[in-house]
């Protein structure tokens, strides 16, 4: 073998030199040629990296039981719970397809990282309570052998929601429900508010609700990296690529009325590699759509919404990217260490950032003035017209502040009712959704991941019943709405 290889290498070396002399121009580069020959021999020797066939190790596997589209915090959480709840170790093969490993425009890293239980739907409250518990025990759930413990940087300072006279009765009702579900929320009168937080101007405030436990903000990047690390140690494959095509089989059936129903089943997912035309078809049993703001596009790829309007087939996944700005400002006289995440009656919010009197905040724009979600450019006028005036009115010391930086991120905005979409699609039977949380996906990700994993593994929700969040509601027109004070 060795001799043949040597002969091969030498022979080719002489051949190329012969060519050179025949052309007559080049000088004899003996050392260079020898080096080339040596390299060739080395590459052919047994035990080297030489492979006669094309190396495909950078591609995702050809088979995977579950393919998760989107490697953000929701997708990784689904992967984590699938592996955690599987019956036997290694029973399920999970592939997570993430387009951008730097997460440069993923909603996860760009969010403020708040967690609250002050919702009006029992499902949302339960999801947040479960997630708070998960985050508290994060170093038990996401512990990796010999890995350093995660530092979540949780600030347990709570949310302070302010309600005007109009919203006071809704707030009272909401807090009653939140307490029933086990959240630690208290109501405060303007008088109490003034005593507790003297920097608030209580003009126009009728009632405030304040979260005492399990509310605050944390470092979303830490949760993301912790999940990534844990999931990889559990044997989940994370691949950088983009899903470009779903290949599905069709099943025609007749329902009780004699109408034809076409059921689709995805059996192959085409994963296109980054910056190349190469793609890998991955055979799979279940696809999970956790693509966040882009999950509407992923659903359209699977043929969801391509039918006559008004039918189940023609019902689109109403999730689209919406741009939201976060501003960071400095205010030397601003609220101190005890400042909670305050949401004003106008909808503007802020929280403290670190110890140096820096603050982060923003405001959701109204439907008419939604910015174009094509890029992540920041509109600085928005701060001056929509965020600053209400905040300065509420907290008079904010009259004097200096904006330091700003960024924009995407909401996976559900245009139908601003709540999450969880569970399978009625027609594309093996595509499950975990998306559309319209801004509170990060804080509910641990619980939603568990719910989806239970649905995939056991066929039903076990810990938290999320039947109100299924896709059917878009067709039936039943909105699962939050009754917010603002």
């Amino acid at each position, binding site marked *: 073998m060795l001799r043949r290889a040597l002969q091969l290498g030498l022979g080719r070396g002489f051949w190329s030199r012969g060519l050179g002399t025949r052309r007559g121009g080049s000088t004899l580069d003996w050392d260079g040629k020898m080096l080339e020959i040596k390299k060739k021999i080395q590459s052919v020797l047994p035990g080297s990296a030489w492979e006669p066939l094309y190396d495909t190790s950078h591609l995702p596997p050809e088979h995977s039981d579950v393919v998760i589209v989107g490697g953000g915090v929701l997708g990784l959480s689904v992967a984590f719970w699938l592996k955690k709840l599987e019956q036997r170790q290694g029973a399920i093969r999970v592939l997570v397809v993430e387009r951008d490993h730097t997460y440069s425009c993923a909603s996860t890293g760009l969010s403020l990282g708040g967690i609250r239980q002050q919702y009006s739907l029992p499902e949302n409250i339960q999801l947040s309570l479960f997630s708070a518990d998960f985050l*508290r025990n994060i170093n038990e759930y996401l512990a990796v*052998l010999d*890995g350093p413990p995660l530092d979540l940087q*949780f600030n347990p300072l709570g949310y302070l929601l302010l309600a005007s006279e109009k919203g006071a009765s809704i707030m009272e009702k909401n807090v009653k429900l939140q307490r029933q579900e086990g959240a630690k929320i208290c109501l405060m009168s303007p008088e109490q508010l003034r005593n507790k937080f003297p920097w608030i101007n209580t003009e126009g405030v009728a009632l405030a609700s304040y979260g005492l436990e399990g509310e605050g903000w944390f470092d979303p990047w830490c949760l993301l990296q912790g999940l990534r690390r844990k999931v990889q140690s559990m044997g989940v494959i*994370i691949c950088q690529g983009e899903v470009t095509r779903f290949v599905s089989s069709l099943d025609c059936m007749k329902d009780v009325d004699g109408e034809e129903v076409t059921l689709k089943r995805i059996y192959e997912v085409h994963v296109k590699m980054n910056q190349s035309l190469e793609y890998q078809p991955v055979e799979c049993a279940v696809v999970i759509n956790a693509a966040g703001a882009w999950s509407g596009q992923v659903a359209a790829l699977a043929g969801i919404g391509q039918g006559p309007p008004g039918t189940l087939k023609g019902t689109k996944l109403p999730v689209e990217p919406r741009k939201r700005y976060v501003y960071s400002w400095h205010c030397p006289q601003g609220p*101190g*260490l005890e400042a909670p995440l305050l949401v004003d009656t106008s909808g503007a919010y802020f929280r403290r950032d670190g110890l140096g009197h820096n603050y982060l905040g923003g405001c959701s724009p109204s439907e008419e003035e939604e910015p174009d979600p094509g890029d992540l450019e920041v509109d600085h006028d928005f701060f001056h017209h929509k965020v600053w005036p209400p905040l300065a009115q509420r907290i008079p010391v904010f009259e004097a502040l200096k904006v330091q930086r700003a960024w924009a991120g995407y909401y996976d905005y559900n245009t139908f009712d601003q709540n999450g979409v969880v569970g399978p699609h009625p027609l594309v039977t093996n595509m499950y959704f975990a998306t559309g949380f319209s801004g509170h996906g990060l804080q509910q990700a641990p619980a939603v991941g568990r719910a989806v994993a239970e649905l995939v593994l056991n066929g039903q929700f076990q810990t938290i019943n999320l039947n109100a969040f299924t896709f059917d509601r878009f067709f039936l027109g039943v909105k699962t709405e939050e009754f917010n004070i603002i």
Partner: protein
Amino acid sequence: MAAPRAPLHLVTPVWSGGTWGIRGLSSAVAPEGNKKRTLLQLLCGYFSGVRVLREYQFRKQLQKVQKKNRSFTYIQDRYGPDIAGAYFILKLGGSVKFQGNEWMGPKDHGHSLDVLKLQAVPVEAVDASGCAINYQGLDNLLALKELRSLSLQRCPHVDDWCLSRLYLMANSLQELSVAGCPQVSERGLACLHHLQNLHRLDISDLPAVTNPSLTQILVEEMLPNCEVMGADWTHSLNPQPEDESQDIASPSAPSPSSRSSAG
């Protein structure tokens, strides 16, 4: 067929890119990680059985702490929250003080009759220094309505989440010490603003606090009626720091390398 294939996937380039990052992370925390690696850690990389064993061991350790911290519902129902709280602390190795009585240490634990005699007497002070108390175990203490002094010095499992629950004692608590708790940071200390009756707060020697002196000043601003004992340098400047620490802790005072000394 699935089982032997799974490890093969682990060596794809994309994957190893991920593991490299994690190793890089761990080496940043412990630079001489290689030297300190135990034999078991080494074997972990080669035998999945060793790995499973070590994971089991890790889970057992967590369970041990959880078991220690379960609440004594039976005692609480039968003898009231004060006896249950005292029993819990004595069992963990701390000491308690009932109103009008002497301190009771873990040595008195055997005389449970003594404790039972004090059924109608509320617990006034708890010293849980160095105990393995955690978030769950705190339930036993939060039921003590007359608790005036609480010491959680050097408790390894007390973290910011625990401090965020102390608001339930806001009416009674006057003295609190969280000195030396490795997991307590400025984020948890910020929650103590609920404790408006606090007279004395010891926040010295907290390795997780990034700026001890600044944090102390901010905590003092937050709790104006409270004497805050904080960063190491006040102790080194003054032989009796506990009496005058508030005077020294002005913003203009120098803070020589307090961060490095705190670790």
